[in-house]
C-alpha cells in the first residue's frame, strides 16, 4: 500500500475512531461528575441565559485587563479565524466533510484560503515566540502546550506546501498533510485542544453559577 492510500485509508479511519472515542470519553467523564450541592437561595433561575451570555461576553477581556491581554488575544483570534476559513472554506476540505457527513456548502476562492493559511502560520509562530520569550508563560508552559502547538501548525504548513506543490512529489505532500491531520485528530481529545468543546462547557457552567448567584455575567 502506498503512503497516500495508507493516509487516506487506515490512518484516517483510526484517527477518526480515536477522536470520537476520546472526545466522548472526556466529555462523558466531565459531565457525569458530581457537582457540589449549592444550598444557597438562588438569586435568579435564568441560569441557561446566564450560561449563554457568559460564553459571549468572555470573547473579549474585561476593560481592566485589556491592556495586558490584547496582543495575545488578538493573535489567538487571527489563527482561530484563519483556521476556520481554511478548514471550512477550502473546497477540497468541504468535500472531505461531505464524504463523512453529507453536509456541503459553497467554498471560498482559493486565493483567499491561501492567504488565510499563511496568516494563520504567521500568527501561530508569533504565539510560540511570545510563549518562549515571556518569562511567566515560559515557566507555566508544559509538554501539552508545545505539542498541541505543533500538531496544529503542521497541517497548515503541510497543506500550504501541498497546494504549492513544493518540496516533494504531490502525492507525498498530500499524504504527509493527511497524516498530520490524523495526528491532530488523535491528539485532540487528550490535550488542551479539547477546549474546542470544553470552552463552551466551562464558560457555560461559570455563567450559570454566576447567574444563580446574581453576579454579573
Amino acid at each position, binding site marked *: 500500500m502506498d503512503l497516500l492510500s495508507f493516509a487516506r485509508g487506515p490512518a484516517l479511519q483510526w484517527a477518526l*475512531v480515536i477522536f470520537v472515542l476520546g472526545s466522548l470519553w472526556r466529555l462523558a467523564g466531565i459531565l457525569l461528575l458530581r457537582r457540589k450541592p449549592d444550598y444557597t437561595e438562588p438569586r435568579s433561575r435564568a441560569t441557561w441565559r446566564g450560561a449563554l451570555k457568559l460564553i459571549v461576553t468572555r470573547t473579549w477581556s474585561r476593560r481592566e485587563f485589556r491592556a495586558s491581554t490584547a496582543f495575545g488575544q488578538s493573535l489567538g483570534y487571527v489563527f482561530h479565524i484563519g483556521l476556520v476559513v481554511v478548514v471550512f472554506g477550502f473546497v477540497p476540505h468541504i468535500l472531505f466533510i461531505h464524504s463523512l457527513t453529507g453536509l456541503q456548502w459553497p467554498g471560498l476562492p482559493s486565493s483567499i484560503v491561501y492567504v488565510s493559511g499563511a496568516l494563520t502560520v504567521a500568527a501561530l509562530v508569533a504565539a510560540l515566540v511570545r510563549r518562549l520569550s515571556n518569562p511567566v508563560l515560559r515557566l507555566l508552559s508544559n509538554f501539552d502546550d508545545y505539542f498541541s502547538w505543533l500538531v496544529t501548525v503542521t497541517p497548515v504548513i503541510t497543506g500550504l506546501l501541498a497546494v504549492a506543490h513544493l518540496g516533494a512529489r504531490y502525492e507525498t505532500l498530500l499524504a504527509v498533510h493527511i497524516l498530520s491531520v490524523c495526528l491532530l485528530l488523535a491528539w485532540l481529545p487528550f490535550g488542551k485542544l479539547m477546549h474546542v468543546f470544553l470552552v463552551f462547557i466551562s464558560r457555560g457552567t461559570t455563567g450559570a453559577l454566576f447567574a444563580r448567584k446574581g453576579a454579573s455575567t
Partner: protein
Amino acid sequence: MNTQRDPTVLESFQQQGLSRRAFLKFCAATASLLALPAARAAELAEKLAGMPRPTVIYLSFQECTGCLESLTRSFQPTLESLIFNTISLAYNDTLQAAAGEAAEAAREDAMRKAWGKYVLIVDGAIPRPEDGAYCVIGGRSALDLLRHAAEGAAAVVAVGTCAAFGGIPYAAPNPTGAASVQDLVGDRPVINISGCPPIPEVITGTIVYFLGFGVPELDAQRRPTMFYGTTIHDRCYRRPFYDKGLFARSFDDEGARNGWCLYELGCKGPVTYNSCATMKWNDGTSFPIQSGHGCLGCSEPNFWDGGGFYRPLSSGLWHGGIGEGLGVAAVAGVAIGGAAAVAARQRQKRTTEAGKKPPEAP
C-alpha cells in the same frame, strides 16, 4: 542485396516501398515525439538505419486486448503501425495469421534464433496460484510462458497497467491471485508502460527509443520519465480554474460547461503521471478532462481501488461506510467516560464523607 543476413530497419522500410527520405521523416516524427534534441535525433536515424530489425515477442495474458487496440489501427495505416517496420514481430496471437501448434513452434524458433537479444513485450497480468492454472494458453500456463520467455529476453516491456501493476485482475479481491510482470521478472530490465490503455505514441516512442539508445531513464515505478515525468494536473489546461477554486459540481452544470476544474467530480489528475494532457488521444484530439470527465488515474497502481472514480481525492479511502466504526467508538467512549465518572464520583463521595466526620478528640 545480401540475403544471408537479416534486413536492417532501413532496408525493411525500403522493402515496403518506402524510401530513405520516408524513413528519415519517420525518425524525425518519432524524435519529435520523444522530444529529442537535434543531435540525438540524427543519431537515432543513423542507428536505426544500420541495425537489423530486432525480434520482438508479444505475449498476452490476463488482458482485454485494449492495449494492442491502442497500438494498432485495423482500418487506417498510421505512424504507429510503422513500428512494425522497425521491429520483427515474431509472435502476437491477435495480429498473426498463423494459429495452433505451428504458431507456437514458430515462436519458440524465433526465440531460439535471437536468444538473449529479443525484446519481450507483455500485456495482461499473470495469475500465480495453482501453478498459474487460471491463465493457460496452448497448454502452458502464463506463469510458465513468461518465465521461459523472460530468460532469453534482452529487456521486458510491460505494456498496460495490467502488465505493469496488475491492473483490473489485481483489483480487490484479486480472485485469481494476479501479479504484475515486475513481481515475476527479477533479473532482466523491465520497462513499465502503464495506462489503461497507454497512449499509442508512448508505446511506440518507448520501443523506438529502446532500439536506438537502450533502456530510457525510468521513475520509481519503472516508467519512462520522458512520458511519465509529470502529472496530468501539472499540464492540465483547466489548472487555472483549480488554482482559483472554481469547480464543476455535477456533470453538465454551469461550471462544467465553462470548463471548470473537475476535482469535485473525482479527477485524480494531481496524483497521476502520464502524458494525456500534452499528447492527448486519437492524434491529439482530446483527453478525458477536455471531454468533461475527470482523470481515472489509469496509469497508477491500484487505481481501481482508489476510492471511486467520482469521489474526490480529499475524501476518505475506506470501503463501505465509516458510520458503524464511529458508532462503536462513540458508545465505547461514553462507556469509558461513564466508568471514569463513576469512579470519580465514588472518590468524591468518600472525600465528602471523610470531611463530615468530626475530628478525633485529642
